[in-house]
């Protein structure tokens, strides 16, 4: 494209006579620069080829060039020198160059893998963040009833619902990394709503130390554990029970648990889609440095613990 534009320019300059003398050396210099660039590119192309090519192929090419260069063009010394030079290049630089090539390939592959993991995680997070319509309609039905019988409580419950929706809807979240504090707030709002509905059948306690609330914790995972504890642990039990959210640092890792005194874990429960999702997301996010542990407390029920590396979100810089 550049050369196309230059050609009419030089024709023009030649036609005008005076300026032609000044522009001609410019053209030569330009051409010289182009040629030099071409040689550099060719040299590195040759260098890459020599570095990467197998010894067998190099020997074959050397043999052929000896015949062509030495025999037909009658330049045996030059050809021989060139071959010796390329052998030296191969020995000295070949290994290093090849290592560089493999390294860059590996980097590219790692980047692709990382990207794939991120895409997978984003898709699974969206899946996990779905709000159950059943929950929403039940909550609204309860608010509807409380408006008739106990308006202040209706208002409180509606506020909890708004708080829950604000943090549970993916499009309402800001882009920053989710913290344990945010996740605990979300689940607390959910538990307040469920406690109004289930009354004495749900006794929630949240004991998360203030200091841990700024720790990074993936979104919607705590909520999945809480929903599971209610749906599979407490709701099926006629008398209900306790639900506890807790967090602590164990061996430098952040361990967040949800314990319930419900009917206990069913070994044959085909469900656990939510749990499988948490597991897969932990793998995608932390690549083996995080885990989900389901255990049975001595007093019965179920305890689900998520352990992730302890990391603190840096405080936002003052604007």
């Amino acid at each position, binding site marked *: 494209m550049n050369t196309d534009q230059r050609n009419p320019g030089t024709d023009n300059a030649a036609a005008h006579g005076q300026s032609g003398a000044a522009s001609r050396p410019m053209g030569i210099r330009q051409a010289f620069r182009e040629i030099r660039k071409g040689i550099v590119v060719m040299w590195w192309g040759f260098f890459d080829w020599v570095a990467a090519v197998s010894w067998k192929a190099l020997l074959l090419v050397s043999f052929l060039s000896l015949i062509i260069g030495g025999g037909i063009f009658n330049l045996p010394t030059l050809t021989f020198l060139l071959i010796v030079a390329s052998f030296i290049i191969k020995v000295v630089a070949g290994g290093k160059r090849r290592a560089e090539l493999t390294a860059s390939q590996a980097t590219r592959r790692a980047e692709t893998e990382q990207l794939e993991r991120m895409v997978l995680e984003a898709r699974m997070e969206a899946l996990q963040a779905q709000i159950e319509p059943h929950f929403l*309609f039940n909550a*609204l039905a309860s608010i509807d*009833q409380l408006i*008739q019988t106990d308006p202040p409580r209706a208002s409180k419950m509606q506020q909890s619902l708004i708080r829950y929706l604000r943090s549970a809807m993916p499009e309402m979240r800001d882009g920053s990394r989710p913290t344990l504090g945010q996740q605990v707030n979300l689940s607390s709002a959910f538990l307040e709503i469920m406690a109004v509905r289930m009354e004495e059948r749900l006794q929630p306690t949240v004991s998360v130390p203030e200091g841990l609330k700024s720790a990074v914790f993936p979104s919607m995972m705590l909520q999945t554990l809480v929903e599971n504890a209610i749906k599979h642990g407490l709701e099926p039990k*006629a008398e209900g029970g306790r639900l506890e959210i807790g967090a602590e640092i164990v061996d430098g890792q952040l361990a967040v648990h949800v314990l319930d005194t419900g009917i206990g*874990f069913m070994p*044959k429960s085909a469900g*656990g889609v939510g749990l499988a999702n948490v597991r897969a997301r932990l793998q995608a996010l932390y690549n083996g440095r995080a885990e989900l542990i*389901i*255990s049975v407390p001595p007093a019965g029920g179920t305890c689900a613990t998520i352990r992730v590396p302890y990391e603190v979100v840096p405080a936002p810089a003052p604007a």
Partner: protein
Amino acid sequence: MHPLPAPTAVVADDERLMREQIIARLKVAWPELLIVGEAGNGREAIAIVQSLEPDIVFLDISMPGMDGIQAAQALAGQVHVVFVTAHDQYAISAFEQGAVDYLLKPAEPERVALTCQRLRARLEQAPDPMHALLAQLSQRLGAGGPKPREYMRWVQASVGANLRMIPTSDILFFRAEDKYTRVQTRSFEALIRKPIKELIDELDPDEFWQIHRATVVRVDAVEQVSRNLRGHQVVHVKGSEEKLEVSRSYNHLFKQM
């Protein structure tokens, strides 16, 4: 058919607020209807209906222990049933075929009035046993009916002082050891009391293969199969150094394709 002058009803829902709501709205829509009892779960609903013999029962579908569908199946033909549900697209499509009525929570007063109107007309007839509807419903909701065989998805095992639930997808293999069975995962091992013989019946045959009297391996964890000096097949497992011998009677599992 109904010697009692005032019709009677029982309301079953595990949430008190929801019971209060439906009762309050029934009072407005049908002042003569007597609410004779309330139940907090399916089992209670059956007991109360059978002892008080009301004309109508309002049943929430999702309740602890025994749900509304199961309760309705137990009470089929004894009482007119109205289902109450917060959100269930299946139930709605089934009810549209018109056997009994259903109410969506929160039940709007106008909708409750319509239900009462339908019930008044229905009370003259004997309660519909709703066999077809209930079968369809329970199938769609996955309650009752013939279920596909369920396999173990979690293994309860002691790890140190704790009792843990290990997902079967984490397990590499099971191996009989003296009185116990060892459960091996990538990161730890645990012991269970259940012998291999009983275990194999409960595991999904597509997920786990028995390769030896004392060994069961997860198919997906098998990395390769080689032969040892004695000519036995040996299974190598991803994420474990241990090699598992295949006994002759299980050789066919690893035949070449």
